[in-house]
């Protein structure tokens, strides 16, 4: 005959503690693994826009980033950007330069394509359309979420690369050509992969797609 043994009070406490610890560990594992867990994914079809022709949808792993373009401020730069978006040139292009909480940069069409990354040259690639002139004279506040075209140390060298800033950068005004601002979904960009010791990212995240709301 098996004698039933009652668990003591302290044994019950230890048992409950182990259960809670297991739940906590399991929960943490899920949270750590899913970097997009608390990132809201915006559906552009459910949002009404004042000027839908100037809305671009950047899709990344954590959701949609909705960008309003400003052709009145930088007509040539926005025209170039739209042209590349409409030709789907930005799809599968790396976020090759990322500075935590500061900016993400992408758009190297030559050396930043998924499956054909060139780490030695990434950031120097061209679109094949030539460079365009900087459009930096109009007043523009480079607040968090602003989108601008990348250039070299010289002006008038903008091409296909663009950056999105994750904090206010007042010194960028009159330095870089602005093309628009993120109006929804900036949180998704804060989850883009970065490295602590380098601005250039090894095995970077990619743009899934970048398209205009209305083609």
């Amino acid at each position, binding site marked *: 005959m098996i004698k039933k043994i009652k668990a003591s009070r302290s044994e019950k406490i230890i048992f409950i503690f182990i259960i809670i610890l297991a739940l906590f560990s399991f929960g943490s594992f899920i949270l750590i693994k899913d970097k997009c867990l608390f990132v809201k994914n915006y559906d552009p079809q459910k949002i009404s826009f004042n000027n839908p022709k100037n809305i671009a949808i950047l899709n990344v792993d954590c959701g949609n980033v909705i960008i309003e373009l400003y052709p009145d401020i930088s007509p040539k730069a926005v025209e170039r950007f739209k042209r590349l978006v409409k030709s789907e040139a930005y799809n599968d292009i790396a976020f090759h330069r990322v500075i935590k*909480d*500061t900016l993400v940069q992408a758009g190297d069409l030559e050396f930043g394509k998924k499956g054909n990354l060139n780490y030695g040259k990434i950031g120097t690639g061209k679109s094949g359309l030539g460079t365009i002139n900087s459009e930096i004279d109009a007043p523009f506040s480079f607040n968090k979420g602003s989108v601008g075209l990348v250039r070299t140390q010289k002006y008038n060298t903008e091409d296909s690369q663009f950056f999105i800033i994750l*904090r206010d*950068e*007042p*010194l*960028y005004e*009159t330095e870089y050509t602005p093309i628009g601002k993120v109006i929804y979904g900036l949180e998704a960009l804060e989850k883009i992969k970065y490295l602590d010791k380098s601005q250039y990212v090894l095995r970077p995240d990619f743009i899934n797609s970048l398209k205009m709301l209305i083609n």
Partner: protein
Amino acid sequence: MNLIRLIILSLFVFTQTQADTIYNLIKIPNLEIYDIKTPNKLRYLYAKQPFTLGVDNNISCYNSEKKILDQKYKVIQKNLNRYNQNFLKKINLKYIVLCEDLSISKINTAGIPDNIMKTLILDIKFNEDYFERVIHHEVFHIINDNFKDIFSKKIWSSFNNEEFEYAKCSTCTDKLGLDTYTNTKGFFSEYSQSTASEDMAEVFSHLMIGVNLKNLDPILEKKIDFIKSNLLKIDNNFIL
């Protein structure tokens, strides 16, 4: 107490990140924004910590006490506000770096202009007596670097007496005095006699601070005309 620590820590984090942005733009480390909301859009930065740059780090400058910085900034801004935004754009000047004890290869200097990076580094403690004039002197070097063809050294040198020769460089001579001559003889100061570009900068800076133009010698009159007419070629609204 913890709140104060948190505030200090957050300030430190903020300043570090701004320094990174500034470094990316003008390649000078350890700088912070002093004032960027200026009427002519000049951006004033200051050394938060000492910095070195250049070949073999031969350029160095040190941070200043805030009190001195605040005092000198008023003087610097008052003088640089005389250049409008349009003119500054033409001469490629956008950033003013404020620091003290500026030296290049261990030789103290009032300023280091870099028209490529659109930057002028100013030693805010350089020569208290002629501080305002020195500011304009350094601005002229930026102008000169952008318009070398206009400010021809050959034409300039031809204004001097035939027997006069400038030194090979501004640091290759001991003619460093900045006192304004009462009897000019073709030059405003001893330093004017070092090189053609320093001579031009001295003429320009004397004009900017409003030197008495009566009783000047014919050589200096030619030099003044040369500077004035060439400045109008750059910007026909420029007022001396």
